[in-house]
């Protein structure tokens, strides 16, 4: 369980996070989406006690992170694959992490094996590829078998196999009843993994929704008619959302093709064509974050 309440964090004159509130529940993968610089990393740093919020609070498992005893055994965080000494080996890196939270030493080799980096365990961490360091970061996050996972852009630098590995891993962890918070600036990375979506832009919450709802919001009908004005008025009266396009076509949301056709027929408005359209998740996401940009300006 992760609870963020009215969290505000400023760096000098810039407000990185602005009264942000959301929750991530156990058993679900919560996607944390926003463009670069939206405040995702800041929120996650505040969540694990690295940054002090200027206002509001962030709690994990009901308490501030710093209050947890042996935090690595409760919460696994991957915030930055480069947050290690490049001169140390992956095994040594996991060894001190394990010792710091009294995690059995045997877990180190298990985690290396299981993250697919056992072969590189004795090389300098600084010489590993970004994908390998990312896997090492995941191994570190899961070292203490935590019930909460906080991962900032974990698929960065992973190859397609790695991306699939990550997706299956996170789904499996959520299925075990754990809480997973996964950030990304790309909808396509999160849509197939997350159950819930928390979308932020410029430090503010713009949507707290499910993937399904967001898809439904994007479904509509594209209609061509010689009397677009009359049709738009009619459909609006019946509760649909209507957006006129450049070529006189209308994009109708909240009705399917059959309902649009029957409404037009009952009013005697001719249709030259109608077809279902689906805005992609990516488009829905772009629209959300673009609107937030407008609102702030």
């Amino acid at each position, binding site marked *: 369980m992760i609870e963020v309440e009215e969290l505000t964090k400023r760096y000098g004159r810039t407000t990185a996070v602005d009264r942000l509130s959301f929750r991530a529940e156990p058993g679900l993968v919560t996607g944390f989406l926003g463009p670069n610089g939206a405040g995702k990393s800041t929120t996650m*740093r505040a969540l694990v*006690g690295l940054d002090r919020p200027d206002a509001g609070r962030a709690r994990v498992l009901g308490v501030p992170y*710093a209050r947890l005893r042996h935090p690595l055994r409760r919460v696994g*965080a991957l915030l930055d694959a480069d*947050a290690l*000494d490049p001169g140390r*080996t992956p095994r*040594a890196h996991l060894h*001190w992490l394990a010792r710091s939270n009294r995690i059995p030493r045997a877990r180190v080799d298990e985690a290396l094996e299981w993250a697919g980096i056992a072969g590189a365990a004795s090389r300098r961490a600084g010489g590993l590829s970004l994908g390998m360091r990312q896997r090492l970061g995941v191994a570190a996050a899961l070292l203490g078998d935590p019930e909460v996972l906080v991962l900032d852009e974990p698929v960065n630098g992973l190859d397609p196999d790695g991306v699939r590995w990550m997706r299956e891993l996170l789904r499996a962890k959520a299925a075990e009843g754990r809480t997973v918070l996964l950030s990304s600036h790309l909808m396509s990375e999160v849509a197939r993994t997350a159950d819930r979506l928390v979308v932020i832009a410029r430090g503010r919450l713009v949507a707290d929704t499910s993937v399904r709802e967001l898809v439904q919001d994007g479904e509509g009908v594209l209609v061509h008619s010689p009397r677009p004005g009359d049709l738009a008025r009619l459909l609006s009266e019946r509760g649909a959302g209507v957006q006129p396009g450049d070529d006189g076509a209308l994009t109708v949301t909240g009705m399917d093709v059959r309902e649009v056709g029957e409404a037009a027929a009952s009013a005697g408005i001719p249709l030259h064509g109608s077809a279902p359209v689906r805005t992609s998740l990516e488009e829905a996401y772009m629209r959300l974050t673009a609107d937030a940009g407008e609102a702030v300006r």
Partner: protein
Amino acid sequence: MIDAVATEWIKLRTSRAAWYCLIAAAAMLPLAAAIAWTASQAWDALPPDERTGSISPLTQLAGWGMTLALGVMGALAVSREYTSGMVRTTFTALPSRGRVLAAKALVCGAVAPATALAVLVAVWWATRAVLGDRGMEGIPGPLTQEWEPIAAMAAEAAVFTLLGLGLAALTRSAVASIAALGALWYLVPMTVQFLPEPWNDRVGSVLPGGLAAQIASPGPTGGSVYGDLLPPWGAALTMALWALVPLLAAWPLLRLRDA
């Protein structure tokens, strides 16, 4: 606290930077041995009736070199975590930041004097072995006479290590902390001797590099850039201040600053 100390111990053992500093400190042994050997060759080349001369205490030279190497080790133990970003991993694993700093101070503050002591005793032994029973002045006596200055120099090594650690915790920068350390080690003492009397001796007496010799000196300190005004207990107290004040100043900052 035990977990934090054990963690820092593993980190130090597996840190390349720390090993380089320890190797640099240990390199004082072959350096001192080489100087002693050169002196013995020069001595033996003289006709027996012209053999006079002295050698300055090599334990002091080795101790002086080691304070810098071990000070840098202390500075890097903290600053490398900041420059690499590892400090964020450290503070998520051990959110009690004061405890992390204290653990680093304990581990480095134990490893540094232990290393210094071992190297100094080896230098003492090597000097005596190389120079043997030549009639040169300045050949160290038996350990029963020499242990006090050696122990004082090992303590000074610990002071420089903790000073480096504290400076790094304050500045969070390898460059700034090592530059400040190097200045206190060489530049400041070299400059202070040119201050007008009596300030050259007064300031020179409280600089960290001159404190061991005021507790127990291995030989005549004539020509030293440092002053000699403090009683042994005063020098010991000043050592404690140099070691602890930067650390204590960094303590509250560590909690307030974002990692």
